[in-house]
């Protein structure tokens, strides 16, 4: 097995990291301050909001000992606003979202849907948002047409980046290997999503078709 295969960051690991994000809960149990390695959380008083890591919130929720307060961005209205923003700016970069928005939303929809307002609508809005962002990223990927020393991909979430990693790195490495032909071309500063020039039928482009 090559080094790359053994080292790859998996989706499960990204999800594991998302579980450390802080979230507010309203406990229905009285507990003293919980001294964890990651920090001290609590005290937990009935009806008083307290900030805890997501994994702890999920643990208490599964024991039916708290109500989770969803993050401010996890409402149908806020997500639809982001969908609209993404839709209105098809040629610009991605809209800013939480770095673990997919993982947090999916976990809360799974374990705490009763704490969310209209979870079905939230799920639908999230699917729309994800589709739009994925399409934007795919388009951006297809716009990489020559050797480039860097690409800025602002506001990409960690999970989105993890799915983009393989194809994008392969494309960049492929172009880097076409050293001689593109070395003399002027390297220019650009962002992946800002590319809108019409594609040209070159050998490089034909190579890239497999990533479509």
């Amino acid at each position, binding site marked *: 097995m090559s080094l790359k295969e053994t080292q790859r960051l998996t989706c499960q690991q990204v999800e594991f990291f998302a579980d450390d994000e802080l979230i507010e809960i309203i406990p229905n149990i009285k507990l003293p301050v919980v001294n964890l390695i990651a920090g001290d959380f609590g005290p937990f008083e009935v009806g008083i909001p307290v900030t805890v890591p997501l994994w702890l919130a999920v643990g208490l929720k599964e024991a039916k000992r708290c109500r989770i307060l969803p993050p401010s961005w996890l409402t149908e209205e806020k997500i639809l606003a982001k969908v609209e923003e993404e839709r209105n700016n098809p040629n610009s970069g991605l809209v800013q979202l939480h770095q673990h928005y997919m993982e947090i939303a999916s976990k809360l929809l799974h374990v705490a849907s009763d704490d969310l307002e209209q979870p079905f609508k939230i799920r639908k809005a999230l699917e729309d948002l994800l589709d739009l962002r994925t399409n934007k990223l795919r388009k951006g990927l297809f716009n990489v047409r020559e050797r480039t*020393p860097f690409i800025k991909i602002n506001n990409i979430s960690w999970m989105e980046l993890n799915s983009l990693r393989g194809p994008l790195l392969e494309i960049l490495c492929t172009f880097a290997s076409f050293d001689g032909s593109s070395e003399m071309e002027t390297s220019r500063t650009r962002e992946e999503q800002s590319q809108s020039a019409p594609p040209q039928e070159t050998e490089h482009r034909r190579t890239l078709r497999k990533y479509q």
Partner: protein
Amino acid sequence: MEESYQEGKEDINYDVWRLRKWLVNEKCCNDILPYQEELVTGFADLCQFQQSLVEQVTGTDDFATILVKNLKELELERIRYLLKEYLRTRLRKIESLLFYLGRDKEKWSLLSSAETEYMKQLYQLMTSHFERSFLNGLPEKLRAIDERDGDNPPGNLDDMDEFVFLYAAEEIGNVTTDPSSQVTSTIHIRKGEVVCLRYSVAKQYLLDESAFLL
């Protein structure tokens, strides 16, 4: 990228985040990075201490006490996973880069004493195995086993200079990208930006912790 977990909140041990960042840095680049001894030994001691506290809680029927104990055990498992994955990732890397590390003694300072010992012994075992099994039967000029061939371990840093995704935790400023190219270009990296660039460019920002890999 919006980070919800920004420094400033009291009672939070941000070393957990640092350990996670170093784990991801190791996973996302082909080079071996400096061993984070302080973090690893610190967390190993903390885990041991927390385990002893958890074990002291016995023979109680109090629901709240049992719940807190379970939460602490759950967290212990999470921290241990991070530690193990960090160490395992480095061991896999050492095995993959064995011949490169074996002959580049400067790189040994990046390893822990246990890792260095493991690398030396493995290097010796592999070398003697290859020699006994077939190398000794070849003409002398073909006996070297540290040459790159196909998917074999890389022989120098150039082979590790792949593209990586860098997240700027601080304002980095102007950076010259792709210094090996005839055409130089610069990029201004602001705090919170994600840039895909060469590892050789990103490395210094990983080492001073002003950025990390994703």
